[in-house]
């Protein structure tokens, strides 16, 4: 279920209409007007990038890096082939916004990528799509055909000398490919194992060529910014947190779904939009930015506004905007056990601290959850975490540790209670 509240990606999309994703409907909503404006008014690359910087748009995939700045890193005068890549490998537990963009408004993404190609002087792009959403991949392919037939995509776009080719690439089940360099490896037809950075993709990306990678929602926000101006987008949110953002709300709420709202909206309001807590239960905790973000207890969360700065100040991350809501019945040890299993399962195995460490995290949390915890286990978890975080090529190691640290910080007593019970059961 997608609920449009007030946002740029799903503006005027009628979710009930099975044809709402088609080019014809998109154009009726003002789609491809931004591209036409650029081509007809011969807007310069510098002007587009300046507008992107003004907008304050930050990467919507999780890292929150300023998009305009990233675009400015691209060596525009580089003589060889360059690539534009969209990261639709959405597998962060709790996140399902890019899926809805692909299903309900794929042309916003396509138009955003074409504009990105124009601004950075890139002629070829790929959209890497999460393996489990094959139907979204098919829809994207169909939308590409529509865009090509209408002259928005391909050679000599809208009669100009600007050419841009775009293709869909379907993944086949690997969380790690959401990491941008693993995604590039996968796009090259290899195992999805992250690369060392530097060099960064802007200098050595796909096939070793300069490459810019952005998230689906980031690209889908671009047409609005170009059409309405960066300043207007910025003002929809708040300073340093420009625009609106999709929040994927899952867990114990009455109406899970995607909510597109201005950055800076209080969490309490978002919870209300979701129809409040399911079965009238009490809110216990929220993971505010996807499973890798540290959990926050209810009282802290209820004071937060939904933006990068507020959530960071509270000790967590806005991440991808995946809000996992848990009520008073949730055992936090069991919740962490499931997440730790996930990271262990999805570690690509390249770096020893992550490959071995995620196994240790899972096994120790598993034994605590199953009444076999030992008094030294919480120290062990901290020590293992310290030996993973910051010691791996990519951020999956950190992502496996953050939930453990968050749970131990705010819900340590639940772990201690289970360990004490296990000791008593043994007569110790």
């Amino acid at each position: 279920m997608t609920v449009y509240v007030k946002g740029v990606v799903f503006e005027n999309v009628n979710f009930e209409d099975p044809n709402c994703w088609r080019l014809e409907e998109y154009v009726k909503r003002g789609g491809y007007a931004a591209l036409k404006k650029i081509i007809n008014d011969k807007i310069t690359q510098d002007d587009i990038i300046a507008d992107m910087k003004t907008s304050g748009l930050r990467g919507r995939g999780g890292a929150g890096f300023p998009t305009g700045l990233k675009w400015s890193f691209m060596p525009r005068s580089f003589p060889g082939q360059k690539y534009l890549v969209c990261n639709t490998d959405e597998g962060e537990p709790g996140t399902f916004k890019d899926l809805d963009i692909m299903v309900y408004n794929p042309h916003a993404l396509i138009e955003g990528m074409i504009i990105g190609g124009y601004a950075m002087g890139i002629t070829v792009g790929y959209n890497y799509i999460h393996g489990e959403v094959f139907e979204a991949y098919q829809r994207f392919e169909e939308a590409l055909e529509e865009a090509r037939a209408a002259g928005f995509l391909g050679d000599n776009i809208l009669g100009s000398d600007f050419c841009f080719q775009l293709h869909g690439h379907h993944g086949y089940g690997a969380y790690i490919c959401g990491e941008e360099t693993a995604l590039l490896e996968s796009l090259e037809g290899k195992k999805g194992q992250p690369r060392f950075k530097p060099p960064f993709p802007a200098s050595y990306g796909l096939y070793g060529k300069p490459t810019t990678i952005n998230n689906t929602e980031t690209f889908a926000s671009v047409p609005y910014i170009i059409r309405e101006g960066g300043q207007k987008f910025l003002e929809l949110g708040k300073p340093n947190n420009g625009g609106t953002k999709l929040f994927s709300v899952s867990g114990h709420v009455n109406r899970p779904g995607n909510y597109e709202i201005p950055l800076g909206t209080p969490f309490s309001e978002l919870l209300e939009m979701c129809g409040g807590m399911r079965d009238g239960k009490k809110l216990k905790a929220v993971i505010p930015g996807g499973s890798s973000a540290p959990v926050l207890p209810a009282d802290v969360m209820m004071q937060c506004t939904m933006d990068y700065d507020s959530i960071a100040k509270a000790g967590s991350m806005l991440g991808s905007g995946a809000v996992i809501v848990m009520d008073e019945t949730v055992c936090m040890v069991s919740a962490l056990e499931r997440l730790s299993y996930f990271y262990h399962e999805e570690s690509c195995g390249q770096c020893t601290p992550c490959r071995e460490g995620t196994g240790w995290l899972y096994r120790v949390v598993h034994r605590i959850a199953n009444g076999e915890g030992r008094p030294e286990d919480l120290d062990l978890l901290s020590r293992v975490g310290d030996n993973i975080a910051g010691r791996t090529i990519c951020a999956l190691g950190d992502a496996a540790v953050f939930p453990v640290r968050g749970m131990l910080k705010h819900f340590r007593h639940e772990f201690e209670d289970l360990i004490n019970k296990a000791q008593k059961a043994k007569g110790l």
Partner: protein
Amino acid sequence: MSTNNLTTHNLLSAESLAQIDREVAKYPADQARSAVMGALRIAQVEKRYLTNDMIEFIANYLGIAPMMAYEVATFYNMYDMKPVGKHKLTVCTNLPCALSGGYTTANYLKQKLGIDFNETTADGKFTLKEGECMGACGYAPVMLVNNHSMCNHMTPEAIDKKLAELE
């Protein structure tokens, strides 16, 4: 050209090969390796699972070393390297789904089919798998049928209906 007799013959239908050709066309002429993921997927759809011979065939078709195709087939978890039932059912039990009944769905399926995760029913009709996040948490609990068809809100009633539909 392979020295293995098995892989010198076409192991795939003309239709599948045409689909693979469309994948190859997406990438630069010297980067056919990029099409290996799509090619393995297309082969799996036709044959239900991947054999070593098939992987070698795909590699030869794309002009890459068999090991390059093999390491992709074994790295990504949606490729099946062992026979699976006619319908592979993958249930997400990750935290967001678990909060909305993912385990209830999984347990109901186990009981109804009489199998555990990673097992196939005696009639070869169903294989049950535990999945990781499918990126559809708002529609939890979710189940994937044969890798490509997402089923939302899979309550026990919805499962009964879906299983009856699957021939």
